[in-house]
């Protein structure tokens, strides 16, 4: 177990966004978190990243408690989040955005290698490396966000809706890339609205509803669970 989220509750003022939820991520796994809008998926990721503090419960990384660790220290531990809505540094160029992704990396050579790696994965970014991030198209920004996450060389990657706003063909590529990253040993916690695809590549999945985990289990089982099919897959299945 690389990540263990144990019984956390999170509030925004008076709103309870998460109520006593627990989930785990094992070494080398892809785990999908799915659920309707406002279910608390992003809140979960932000809590793991240290941006939010749970009122109860704890978050463990490789067995040690990181509940009260600062976000930057968590990044240093290797837990990287690609946030919802891209959050590109609008006035920095593509190149500088990537450089920020590698903020915690000291070794210039490693950074150089990672550049090559992400440019090879997203050639469009290489073309646009001097364009300010804010003027990229929506999909280009999404690529940049993922690439920026990769620059840090994550051990655990938290992806928040990586396929949002991508063209169908790019969605395919992104999911390919996620699998590739996973193969190189990165554990991935994937939040997706595209539940079908997410569960297709995931090992396990959790279904969130208004701040609670209502279903969990093997990804394939979830894909065939009638509740999931009706509520989150729009009635669509793969068989």
């Amino acid at each position, binding site marked *: 177990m690389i990540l263990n989220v144990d019984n956390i509750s999170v509030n*925004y003022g008076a*709103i309870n966004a998460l109520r006593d939820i627990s989930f785990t991520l094992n070494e080398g796994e892809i785990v999908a978190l*799915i*659920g*309707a*809008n*406002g279910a608390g998926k992003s809140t979960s990721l932000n809590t793991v990243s240290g941006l939010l503090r749970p009122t109860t419960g704890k978050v463990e990384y490789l067995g040690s408690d990181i509940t009260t660790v600062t976000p930057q220290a968590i990044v240093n531990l290797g837990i990287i989040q690609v946030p*919802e*809505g891209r959050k590109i540094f609008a006035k920095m160029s593509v190149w500088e955005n990537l450089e920020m992704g590698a903020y915690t990396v000291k070794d210039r050579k490693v950074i150089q290698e990672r550049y090559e790696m992400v440019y090879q994965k997203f050639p*469009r970014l290489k073309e646009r490396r001097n364009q300010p991030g804010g*003027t*990229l*198209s*929506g*999909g*280009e920004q*999404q*690529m940049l966000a993922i690439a920026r996450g990769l620059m840090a060389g994550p051990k655990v990657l938290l992806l928040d*809706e990586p396929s*949002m*706003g*991508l*063209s*169908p*063909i*790019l*969605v*395919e590529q992104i*999911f390919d890339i996620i*699998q590739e990253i996973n193969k190189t040993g990165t554990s991935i916690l994937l939040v997706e*609205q*595209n*539940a*079908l*695809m997410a569960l*297709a*590549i995931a090992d396990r999945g959790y279904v969130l509803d208004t701040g609670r985990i209502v279903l969990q289990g093997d990804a*394939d089982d979830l894909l065939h669970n009638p509740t999931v099919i*009706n*509520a*989150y*897959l*729009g*009635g*669509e*299945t*793969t068989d």
Partner: protein
Amino acid sequence: MTSNIIQVQGVSKIFGGLTAVNNVNLDIAEGSIYSIIGPNGAGKTTLFNCISGFYIPDHGTVLFQGLALNGRSTDTIASLGLSRTYQNIRLFSNLTAIENVLVGQQPRLKETWVESILQTRRSRKEEKSSLVESFKWLDFVGLREFANSIAGDLPYGAQRKLEIARALGSKPSLLLLDEPTAGMNPQETLEMTALIRSLRDKFNITIILIEHDMHVVMGISDYISVLDFGNKIAEGKPEEIQHNERVIEAYLGPGGAALAQKYRKKKVS
């Protein structure tokens, strides 16, 4: 029904060296649902910005109900009956939902500030009627219960719907929707699709849609144009587009369910 509500004639938009939109022509029939699709960075949003007056096209003109829009400010264009939503949600996030919709009504109201101070009969009547309408629009998008919630605190999907309600406030005859279902799950997407359709069916609002979800696009569009690198590479009815080689190659790929199958096979093997 056959007249063209909007004509885009040879519009180009250039950023530095990059031609984001290149000589695009569109003729959009009144009362239709018209989709614009294309790869990321194809220039769809830029085209929207040219139509709605955010950008001044470098070449070409946009005719709305026969009136050239070039160089008009966005508020003038909005009062002519052209509304839009945004790819990255832009609500008045510190105001309540109902206030957002009330602001959307601005172009139809005639109350002046003097009347506001004096609260003349007309202004009171107008205030009331705009409030009634706003509540109805909120009802329509299913956000009645959130009327007095702060817009910024609403869940993402609700915010998208609220943007539509706000856009409808001005009784537009043309509505531009930029990826209305982004970030929604399939179930919510279905609801949104129904909502878009009823806008056209019930109120005869012409809709131009940018969307990456092919279920939506193929399901409700009357007509589709495909942009790639700023150029229109194809147009036609959904069936035609679905089978257009070039479009499949540049944009569509194998399609969602097929893809999922592919991955599952990979995983099993």
